[in-house]
């Protein structure tokens, strides 16, 4: 049976599932087996289109047999083939379906893995969808209390945001990563996330936001005591003084070189824009204070 033509297997399986006068209930058990074999045969023959179809049907069969785990596995295989074909909407759909089926089994890790695979496949083609998938994957893990696993997903989502140049979103995500890290007492990741967020704000030339972010993060003990805090404060004071050399020197330092590679890249490009303007603003701010002091 294994060696026979996958097309024949497909037609046979189809016949088993089609309801007619002679057949009053579909024989999903045998049909699923045949669909799976046909799909493997098509895959070996590199006939991705038919293989994808066969996997879809096999998955449906397994669902009918109330075995969501196998159904999900078949869905994932179908999605992988859809990726080969470059059919991005189908990729997203299939992986989402697979993730739901995994959730039905009560297994959150594979569910989020399925969404993460989808996001990785769509990163280049449809980055907005990819980001949404990453967010959903993170939520699944957080609901289940497995934040530690979510770190990589947060980092990947941040990278996609940075590529899309959506810096506020990227920084917000890094802060979410910090929050997740806080829940698991992963202080190193937390501090790196906060430093990353500050750098992203500085790269977007949003100095006020960066300062606010820094002040917020300084409320957190773990960050306050860390190297990353020192680096962040030095960076912000260099920005205040408009000292470009200092900024460049800090971005070469080892603290920043231990961060995520996308963040290192944007840190090396600091400072963006004109910092001499900042120096003037800082000077102007001082003047009214001085007047108040004198009077």
């Amino acid at each position, binding site marked *: 049976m294994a060696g026979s033509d996958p097309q024949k297997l497909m037609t046979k399986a189809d016949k088993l599932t089609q309801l007619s006068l002679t057949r009053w209930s579909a024989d999903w058990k045998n049909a699923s087996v045949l669909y799976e074999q046909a799909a493997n045969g098509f895959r070996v023959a590199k006939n991705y289109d038919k293989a994808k179809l066969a996997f879809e049907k096999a998955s449906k069969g397994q669902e009918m047999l109330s075995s969501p785990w196998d159904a999900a596995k078949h869905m994932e295989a179908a999605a992988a083939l859809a990726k080969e074909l470059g059919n991005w909407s189908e990729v997203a759909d299939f992986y989402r379906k697979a993730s739901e089926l995994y959730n039905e089994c009560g297994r959150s890790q594979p569910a989020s893995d399925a969404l993460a695979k989808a996001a990785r496949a769509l990163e280049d083609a449809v980055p907005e969808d990819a980001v949404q998938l990453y967010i959903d994957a993170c939520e699944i893990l957080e609901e289940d209390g497995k934040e530690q*696993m979510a770190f990589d997903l947060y980092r990947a989502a941040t990278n996609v945001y940075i590529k899309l140049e959506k810096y506020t979103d990227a920084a917000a995500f890094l802060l979410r990563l910090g929050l997740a890290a806080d829940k*698991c007492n992963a*202080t190193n990741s937390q501090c790196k996330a906060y430093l990353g967020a500050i750098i992203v704000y500085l790269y977007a030339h949003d100095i006020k936001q960066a300062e606010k972010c820094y002040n917020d993060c300084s409320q957190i003990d773990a960050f306050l005591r860390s*190297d990353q805090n020192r680096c962040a404060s030095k960076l912000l004071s260099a920005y205040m003084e408009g000292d470009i050399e200092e900024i460049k020197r800090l971005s070469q330092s*080892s*603290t920043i070189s*231990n961060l995520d590679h996308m963040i290192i890249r944007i840190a090396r490009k600091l400072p963006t824009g004109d910092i001499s303007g900042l120096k003037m603003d800082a000077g102007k701010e001082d003047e009214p204070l001085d007047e108040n002091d004198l009077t």
Partner: protein
Amino acid sequence: MSVIDILTRVDSICKKYDKYDIEKQKGGNVSGDDAFARLYGVVEADIEASLGKAEAAAKEKNKASAVALNAEIRRTKARLLEEVPKLQRLAMKKVKGLSPEEFAARNDLVLALPDRIQAIPDGTATAPKQTSWTTSASRTEIKFDSGVEPIQARDQGLDMISEGLDTLKNMAHDMNEEMDRQVPLMDEIDSKVDRAAADLKNTNVRLKDTVNQLRSSRNFCIDIVLLCIILGIAAYLYK
């Protein structure tokens, strides 16, 4: 490295390997057989390279790299000074096809070399003014040199150690977090494997019971008898 540095270095490298350029040698004035000319060419190239490095060191903002460059320059200078006596000996040798004026010129060139080598700036506070006439001055200069250098070298070493430690610290922290992540997974694996082991044990016991049952003699005899009957019938049919 700036573009100018790259250009200078490429020039010096080309000059150094010109001796392998056959076309140039055939048409050029550097003869392939003349050992003196070759060695002199090499020394010249080294001097040029060191001058380039000295300029780079002067422009360098990072103290550690400036110190490293200066140390390299000093090493090159020492090496070149060792080559000078060799050159002098070669200059003395008579080479065919060489005019007497060129011969004399060679000698002068060799004599001028030590001055040129010493003149290469290597970042020491007091550059030697005239090393040819006061060896004692150069000796005190050297003493001052050895006073400044170890501290800078030590700073440089400490910087490198600090960088390495930073990397190690980061790696250790990451490893710590990874371990924390693995602990609940290992617990899950542990419980699952325990369950699977218990199931297997159970299954084995049941299998043993079943096989024992099957092995009971009555069933076995009946099986053998039936088998014989079937073989008999088959033999009869095929006869």
